[in-house]
């Protein structure tokens, strides 16, 4: 156990986490440069395209250190996005140390700070690394000062590196061996293994990535999971190199995988503890949380006839993604579909994209919303994850919405505009810490609902891409919220309802009514668009009736052509949703997302 080091890498997007990982793998001979398909750890296409790691993975390296000993270094990769904070915290719990990678020109970012705090909370040893020191824009002295300020470390403890130019890689490996403590644990105690990630393999079932804290896990062990009652037999146990290498057992301190004919990733939940059935440990490892969706949206097939197909696709997809929850719902406007819960907006986009790419499902998503707690005058408490289910205004005593604590790191010249943005988003200012004279760390509290749509895009745009942002859920708070309905020719469109703060209702109503006017094409009849709170109309707009749409000529040779055009037109209409006598194009259901405040 003295020769094992379990570590992870903390970095902001684009600061070079994946390239550093590749260099470490190459240096230790775990992979050759040719094998390093650029960034080996991001194995999903989607991950590579977006340049982010969505799901964490692990890989083991053998390193012969300058002290002459051979060490087993387990790199446990962490997801890089705020939607996956819980998964990050579980990955950290599997390690004793972390590399903190900071771009030598960009400096410390919000995500760096929030993940660093998670790592410090988890008691990890931190190894600071400045990456990209060879770039012309690099300012190592300035960035070093930021890091020193943040960590309270010494100047000489900071490693200067460039993954691209292969600088500092050996220093990093040596630091891991020297600084990161070997795992503590006792192989003679009953088994306690932490699941820090799980993936689904269509042939083998769920594969749990584990860190054994105490005891030993062997093949043919009967495994008990603390999060549920099912018992599985360990069919295969091993360590992770580029591929899985079967070893038959893992002991305290080691990192690897276990396969047990588990049909569903929901039985290998991240954060759960595995032990031996009946004779195992009495208590799980601390820190397990049931992951709860933060953002909800309706998912509907673009073609109503494809409901069953979509259900099959979601059923298959959820085998792979324990964080996605869904249940059937019906919308008058969109037909049969599903209300889905996501960890955040990125998670939602990924699900949508993967359903399209891997399952060929074209879907309409309704405007995302958070979950509200409604206390009714009758004393009843209702959880509302679909705006259309909001009780009538007269029945409501009060409504609570989720709040988050947010951290924004920005060059100081943008502080003013960011504060204005935060105010628009109902942010509650907490404090400002200057990381260095040019860089501020702003703390805020926000209603989650205000930051899920476009906050991040706006933040990036007003700071020319320099500000970064991270947040975590802190609880529910009472707010003055109202349900805003959209009516087309007097008929409410359920899928366009939204819950907004009273102070914003008029402004939103106006903007949505105007936006819909642009998105709904002219039709045979005039369309009156109204935004209303209860029975009170607060904004109106009109789509005028179409006045001319007819092919002037239809003679002998034109008839077939005309029929084919007509068939196409009808096909297009199928993709529109009919509410009353109004046809609504799919884009309209996300109209609010495109509104600029």
């Amino acid at each position: 156990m003295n020769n094992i080091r379990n570590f992870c890498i903390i970095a902001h997007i684009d600061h070079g986490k994946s390239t550093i990982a590749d260099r470490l793998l190459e240096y230790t001979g775990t992979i050759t440069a040719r094998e390093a398909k650029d960034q080996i750890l991001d194995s999903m296409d989607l991950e590579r395209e977006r340049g982010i790691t969505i799901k964490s993975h692990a890989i083991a390296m053998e390193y012969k250190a300058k002290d002459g000993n051979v060490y087993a270094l387990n790199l446990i990769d962490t997801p890089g996005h705020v939607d996956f904070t819980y998964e990050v915290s579980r990955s950290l719990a599997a390690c004793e140390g972390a590399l903190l990678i900071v771009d030598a020109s960009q400096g410390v970012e919000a995500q760096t700070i929030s993940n660093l705090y998670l790592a410090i909370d988890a008691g990890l040893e931190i190894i600071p690394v400045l990456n990209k020191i060879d770039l012309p824009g690099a300012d190592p002295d300035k960035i070093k000062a930021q890091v020193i300020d943040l960590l309270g470390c010494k100047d000489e403890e900071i490693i200067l590196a460039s993954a691209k130019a292969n600088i500092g890689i050996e220093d990093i490996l040596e630091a891991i061996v020297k600084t990161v403590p070997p795992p503590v644990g006792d192989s003679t105690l009953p088994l306690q293994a932490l699941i820090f990630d799980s993936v689904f393999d269509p042939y083998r079932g769920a594969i749990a990535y584990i860190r054994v804290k105490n005891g030993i896990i062997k093949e043919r062990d009967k495994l008990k999971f603390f999060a549920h009652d099912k018992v599985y037999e360990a069919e295969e146990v091993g360590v992770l190199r580029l591929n899985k290498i079967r070893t038959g057992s893992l002991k305290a301190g080691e990192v690897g995988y276990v396969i047990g004919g588990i049909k569903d990733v929901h039985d290998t939940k991240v954060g759960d503890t595995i032990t031996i059935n009946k004779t195992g440990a009495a208590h799980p490892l601390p820190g397990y949380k049931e992951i709860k969706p933060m953002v909800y949206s309706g998912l509907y097939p673009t073609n109503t006839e494809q409901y069953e197909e979509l259900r099959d696709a979601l059923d298959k997809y959820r085998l792979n993604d324990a964080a996605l929850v869904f249940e059937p719902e019906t919308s008058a406007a969109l037909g049969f579909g599903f209300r889905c819960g996501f960890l955040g907006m990125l998670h939602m986009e990924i699900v949508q994209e993967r359903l399209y790419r891997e399952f060929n499902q074209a879907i309409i998503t309704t405007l995302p919303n958070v979950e509200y707690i409604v206390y009714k005058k009758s004393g009843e408490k209702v959880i509302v994850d679909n705006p259309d289910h909001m009780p009538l205004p007269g029945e409501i005593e009060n409504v609570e919405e989720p709040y988050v604590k947010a951290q924004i790191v920005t060059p100081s010249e943008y502080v003013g505009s960011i504060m204005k943005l935060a105010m628009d988003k109902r942010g509650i200012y907490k404090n400002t810490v200057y990381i260095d004279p040019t860089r501020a760390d702003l703390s805020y509290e926000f209603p989650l609902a205000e930051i899920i749509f476009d906050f991040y895009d706006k933040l990036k745009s007003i700071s020319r891409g320099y500000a970064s942002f991270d947040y975590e859920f802190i609880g529910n708070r009472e707010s003055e919220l109202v349900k805003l309905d959209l009516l087309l020719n007097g008929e409410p469109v359920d899928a366009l309802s939204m819950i907004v703060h009273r102070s914003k209702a008029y402004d939103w109503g106006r903007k949505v009514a105007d936006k819909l006017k642009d998105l709904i094409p002219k039709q045979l009849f005039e369309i009156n668009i109204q935004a209303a709170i209860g029975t009170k109309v607060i904004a109106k707009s009109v789509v005028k009736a179409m006045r001319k749409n007819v092919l002037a000529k239809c003679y002998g040779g034109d008839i077939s052509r005309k029929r084919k055009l007509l068939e196409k037109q009808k096909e297009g209409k199928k993709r529109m949703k009919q509410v009353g006598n109004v046809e609504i194009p799919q884009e309209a259901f996300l109209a609010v997302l495109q509104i600029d405040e």
Partner: protein
Amino acid sequence: MFFRDHAGIYIHIPFCDHKCIYCDFYSIITSDNIQAYLKALKKEIDYYAEKYQNRNNYVSVFFGGGTPSLMEPKYLGEILDHLHKRFSIKQSAEITMETNPGTVNREKFREFRHAGINRVSVGIQSFDKKELEFLTRIHDAETAKSAVYDAYMAGIENLSLDLIFNLPGQTSEIWLKTLSEAVNLPVKHISAYSLILERGTILNKMVLKGEIDLQGEEIDADLYEKTIGFLGDYGFEQYEVSNFAKPGYECVHNSIYWQAKEYHGFGTSAHSYFDGKRRWNVSSLKFYIDAVNEKGHAIIGEEELTFDERKEEYRYLYLRHTGLNIREYDELFSEDFMTKNEPLVLELINHGLAEYDGVTLQMTGKGYAVCDEIIARIE
């Protein structure tokens, strides 16, 4: 309803003096192959006559183009004689020839009449000097008018005019002036087409290059509305999206298309519809002549309509035309039109887009204007 179980014949004459910028019909600017073409036409007619003898009484022959009036009258006469030999063409049949002003004088019209032509459709398009120049027509307003008078004086009283509206820069003042020139001529029928941008036309290229801007929906709709009103005031009743006639002078030939009746098309790029199939000929003059000489026909494509396709065509053709007789439609296709479409039909009537007398659902002028949208919503 005008005719029952009657069929038509279309003869394409591809020769033109030049290509107009808005035209997407097959045409060529040479007269070298006229003899060979006429020979091939007769051969193609023979081929079909043998295959489909005595099946129909033909009520119409239509010479379209190209510019059929460029031909020697005796040539059209030969074709007509040949058709009479091979098909049962009614004595009262409508025999139409498309004409371009500037290609015919009074004497030649007289010859065409003797050859058998009893209806002439004159491609005038506009009486506005600038518009005619823009459209690259070879005639001016005076030539256009005299072409109509010449035909009339030659004894052809069933006269029609083609006009185009919504040309770039066209105001309702200019258009109404063209319309009033038209109704003051001795014509019985007017076709008024909103400018269509067809792929492959010179006009399309000009628009793509940004050399000209087309006018939008609002102006188009205004001009169309004014057309219907104006022509109605002068006794030209709208009986199809773009067609207006004095009572009794609706075009027999085009009504065959719009009532989903059978027609035979001969010549380059001609289309036919019979036995539930649509067929079309090759466009190229050379390939056409070669194919007919070799096989007797020059078909390069055909489609057999499914039941649903026939139903769809029937619906929209009648709705564009004189209205859909609901009972006949339901019987023909074992349908229940009103059950399927009642809410829409009620809305159409309430918004003044259609009328229903208990038998026929018919477009109003406002309805014709948005007919494509209406038929796309009908099931």
